[in-house]
């Protein structure tokens, strides 16, 4: 079994209300464990608590109940100091939805350097890491550009470079492709996949795109602050009813295969690659109903 790097144990969280609003319970009793180098997708409709979960895992919020274990260490225990949390943030980081609101500097490479500068890393080492990170996300030639003149996908890759320059082991992407056009989305997804496959970075993506979720090793579906289902994309999507019930989609491929199966064709449900899916459908139609 692989190393567990991040674990949530019975996490609950409530947004405190003020005078005229009641406290909002955003997460209830959420538990899961993330393996080193894995790729997990978190799904759920709006308001199901995905962002809240991400912020808890990055220790931006303190859970109202439950524990977060990073590399086996309980980050919610008594006696955890600001400094421990800072140290933890060297390991785990987050890329947000809106690229504009996470870029701090007026020059691309200065922004990528921002996190490393905060860690107090020597200048020469920062320089090296920044160049490397920009290379990985394919933005080396934009190093001296002004961020506001880049496309959305490019800005998002700059933000990703900023977190890989910090040499983080776990990165959470909170709808980081949501504001991008299809091309920008592909750029960013390719970058994320490469980070996971080639550099062994543990990735969690929060997304509304089912085809992105289908690329993951594991899918966690959230509903009203709880985990609805948790498993491989094959396991989760081959039972679409519970997902449909809470208003979620499944990948288009699954939807077609599922309908064929219901009509009596013998097809598998866990094929997400469109070409392959088309071949399977063609074969099944040739064979006819069983």
């Amino acid at each position, binding site marked *: 079994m692989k190393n567990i790097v991040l674990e949530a144990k019975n996490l609950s969280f409530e947004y405190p209300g003020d005078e005229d609003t009641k406290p909002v319970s955003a997460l209830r009793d959420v538990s899961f464990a993330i393996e080193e180098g894995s790729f997990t997708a978190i799904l759920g409709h709006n308001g199901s608590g995905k962002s809240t979960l991400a912020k808890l895992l990055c220790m931006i919020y303190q859970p109202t109940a439950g524990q977060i274990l990073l590399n086996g260490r309980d980050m919610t225990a008594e006696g955890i100091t600001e400094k421990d949390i800072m140290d933890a943030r060297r390991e785990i*980081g*987050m890329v947000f939805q809106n690229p504009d609101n996470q870029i701090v500097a007026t020059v691309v490479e200065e922004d990528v350097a921002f996190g490393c500068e905060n860690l107090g890393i020597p200048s020469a080492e920062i320089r090296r890491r920044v160049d490397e990170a920009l290379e990985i996300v394919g933005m080396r030639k934009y190093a001296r550009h002004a961020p506001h003149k880049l496309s959305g996908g490019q800005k998002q890759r700059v933000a990703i470079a900023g977190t890989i320059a910090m040499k983080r082991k776990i990165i959470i992407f909170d709808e980081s492709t949501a504001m991008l056009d299809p091309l920008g989305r592909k750029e960013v997804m390719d970058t994320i996949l490469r980070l996971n496959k080639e550099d062994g970075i543990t990735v969690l993506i929060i997304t509304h795109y089912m085809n992105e979720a289908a690329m993951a090793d594991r899918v966690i579906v959230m509903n009203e602050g709880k985990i609805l289902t948790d498993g491989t994309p094959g396991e989760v999507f081959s039972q679409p009813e519970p997902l449909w019930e809470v208003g979620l989609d499944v990948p288009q491929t699954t939807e077609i295969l599922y309908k064929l199966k219901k009509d009596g064709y013998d097809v598998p449900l866990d094929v997400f690659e469109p070409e392959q899916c088309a071949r399977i459908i063609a074969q099944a139609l040739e064979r006819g109903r069983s």
Partner: protein
Amino acid sequence: MKSDIAFGQYCEGDSLLHRLDPRAKIVLAVLYIVVIFLAESVASFGLLLLFSAGLVAVSGISPRIVLGSMKALTFIIIFTAVINIFWMQGETLLFALGPVEVYLEGIVNAVLIVLRIMLLLICTSMFLTYTTTPIALTDGIEQLLAPLNRIHVPVHEFAMMMSIALRFIPTLIEETEKIMNAQKARGADFTEGNLLQRAKALIPILVPLFVSAFRRADELATAMECRCYTGGAGRTRMSVLRYDWKDFAAIGTVVLLGAAVVVLNILVPGIGLAM
């Protein structure tokens, strides 16, 4: 692109002035201001005028741009000139209009003071705004003032505020345009009506703009926290500013210029500045 306007008056270039260290340029600007105030005689003003012309030439920036920037000062220039010409007493009476007497000293004084104002503007713009990007300037100020940290002046925080403001100006301009277009599409009119009506038409722009700016600020704060930002303490920088011989040479030149001005004041006094 419209949003470029926001990046101050910086003129792209690669001249000697552009390449000086921003800290050196701030020091140079301050020194040069002192030198300008040292000048008293016509001769020393002549020297400074020559030197400033030299600065403009070295920077490679079109003199027309520099002179154009004087327009903003027209009112101040006329005002000081008039005050000096009509109110200053002297020895050489040129003419009198009823109770108002105009002296030669008054006119010389007016000219020199106007020159002084112009020199001040040229010097700060040549050293600072035209040849230094706002962000380099911010870095320079932060590092020059760093010793003040010890007496608990939040130098780093101010510099950070400055650079974030600079970062977000284009974003907010873009957003303003978007909101204006959205309101125009709903039939809003920002060009007609009297001042009050036009000011009222701006409210539907300002309100969403502020709401969005606060939301951005909130998200940015979270993102910065996530990237381990905890203020200036323990922070390093990727690009470290370094002085080299150019910076020392430039500062040396301005110090020499100051000495020359003092000497000229004494050797060639002539009619000088009286205040």
